[in-house]
């Protein structure tokens, strides 16, 4: 689909020879499609960048988007689509900025006339299609990485590991636990044990509506891993339905401590560590 | 490529001694870091490589380990091939069972490392020896 050296020579002549007019027309067409959501000055700057990149690449000979000589052109296209993706433009609105060049070229080729006119226009058109597809691809990639980033941020927000007491940390789990999230939570819990030097962890699943075998396995593996590291886990807040699921699935919780509520779990840990609960001590006024 | 490891080009390490097993671990670690495996996945694949390289040495009488980067378009991964020309594995089903050993180990080498990787293939015969291929993909 690449342009050969002769074709790109003629393309450069057309675009370079009418630089001012090309950028002007191109900007106008794009501006029409975006209905004022980008300033005219900014659009013009983007179009000038693209124009410069295409002419720059063409001056080096044949234009092949995958060749090394087209590095600048690829960078300009990626830059444009990244910007548009971040600003919330749709895929159509983004690629149209490239396809607009076809209209401009059609006018120019028609004016220039000559025996090669049709042949050239078809070749140029193909090149523009290729540029458009490239832009579309990098638009999608940017959007995908935005989504991945957001998912990750959400995961971090939804899985706090908090210190409850000296030597006791807790993870209050809220919402549906899928396998991926369970894994992230558990890794963070184990890392927190190391960072804080806490030998006790409470996993509170009061806010978890259901568990499947995989999630239960993840929790179990975490408890065993914590034990290997020298820490004890207590599971609290198991709902009746979850208790039934656990038994029905035949998951063996073995000798893992389970408590009805987070408060019970904390009391249990404090008793193990020998901290007296306040109730037992006569209160002294300050 | 910016990574220190030449992606795509397989890297070989012969396994003739204890120290070679350590070298296999280090090689696998470098490649696993280059394809951006998570820390836990790096640890899993290096541990599996350590088990399998030791098997190559102890049961296969030595052999070679080849580490390659693989890419299925969506994800990258590490592929490791352990090959020896030893006597082969007589009873494969038994060898893949937890706790079964003919060599005085814990019997977790094969069965355990299979759980640590995403893909696990094994070809074995008395004539050609044993060839194990494992792959771990990035998440």
């Amino acid at each position, binding site marked *: 689909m690449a342009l050969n050296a002769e074709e790109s020579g003629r393309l450069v002549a057309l675009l370079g020879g009418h630089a001012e007019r090309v950028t002007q027309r191109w900007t106008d067409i794009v501006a029409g499609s975006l209905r004022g959501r980008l300033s005219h000055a900014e659009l013009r700057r983007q179009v000038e960048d693209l124009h410069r990149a295409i002419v720059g690449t063409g001056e080096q000979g044949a234009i092949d988007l995958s060749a090394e000589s087209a590095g600048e052109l690829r960078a300009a296209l990626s830059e444009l689509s990244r910007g548009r993706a971040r600003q919330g433009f749709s895929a159509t609105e983004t690629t149209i900025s490239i396809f607009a060049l076809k209209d401009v070229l059609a006018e120019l080729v028609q004016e220039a006339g000559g025996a090669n006119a049709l042949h050239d226009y078809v070749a140029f058109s193909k090149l523009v299609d290729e540029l458009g597809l490239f832009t579309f691809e990098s638009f999608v990639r940017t959007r995908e990485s935005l989504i991945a980033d957001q998912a990750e941020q959400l995961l971090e927000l939804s899985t706090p590991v908090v210190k409850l007491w000296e030597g006791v940390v807790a993870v209050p789990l809220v919402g549906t636990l899928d396998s991926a999230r369970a894994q992230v939570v558990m890794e963070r819990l184990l890392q927190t044990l190391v960072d804080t030097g806490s030998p006790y962890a409470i996993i509170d699943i009061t806010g978890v509506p259901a568990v499947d075998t995989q999630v239960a396995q993840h929790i179990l593996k975490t408890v065993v891993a914590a034990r290997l590291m020298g820490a004890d886990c207590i599971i609290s807040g198991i709902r009746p339905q979850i208790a039934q699921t656990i038994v029905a699935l035949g998951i063996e919780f073995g000798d893992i401590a389970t408590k009805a509520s987070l408060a019970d779990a904390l009391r249990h840990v404090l008793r193990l560590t020998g901290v007296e609960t306040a109730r037992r001590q006569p209160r002294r006024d300050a | 490529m910016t990574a220190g490891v030449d992606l795509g080009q397989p890297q070989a390490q012969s396994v003739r001694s204890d120290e070679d097993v350590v070298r296999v671990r280090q090689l696998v670690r470098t490649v696993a870091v280059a394809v951006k495996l998570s820390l836990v996945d790096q640890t899993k694949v290096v541990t599996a490589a350590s088990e399998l390289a030791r098997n190559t040495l102890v049961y296969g009488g030595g052999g070679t380990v080849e580490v390659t980067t693989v890419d299925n378009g969506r994800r990258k991964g590490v592929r490791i091939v352990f090959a020896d020309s030893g006597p082969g594995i007589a009873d494969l089903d038994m060898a893949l069972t937890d706790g079964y050993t003919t060599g005085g180990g814990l019997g977790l080498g094969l069965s*355990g490392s299979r759980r640590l990787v995403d893909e696990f293939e094994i070809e074995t015969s008395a004539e050609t020896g044993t060839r194990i291929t494992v792959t771990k993909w990035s998440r």
Partner: protein
Amino acid sequence: MERVPILKIGDILLVSIQLDMSDQTAVQLQDDLAERIVATGCHGVIIDITALDIVDSFVGRMLSTIASISKVLDAETVVVGMRPAVAITLVELGLSLNGIRTALNVERGMELIAAARADELDYQLDDDPDAETATP
């Protein structure tokens, strides 16, 4: 072949594994440690594996063996500093490190050994106190 150094701190032997051990080095450590326990009369061994980025079945077995040997020689072994990724991998591998005591860090390990010794001394109150003090 490299050797893992063994430090004596009070009544405790501290082994901090800093290198990617070959199997031979691991076996050597097992032997060295048994000798040092007898030679020093220490009652506690702390093996710090903070620096180990993997523990495979061979090293796992070495840790178990060291724990058993030192038990026979009247010393308590605690493995400290296992990294989360290593622990997760061991669980997947199916290695449970039965019979090994673990702690998060050296400090906790020392507390564990002190507590274990205190329990034992309680039992030994009726024994002849001179019997315990014969160390070179």
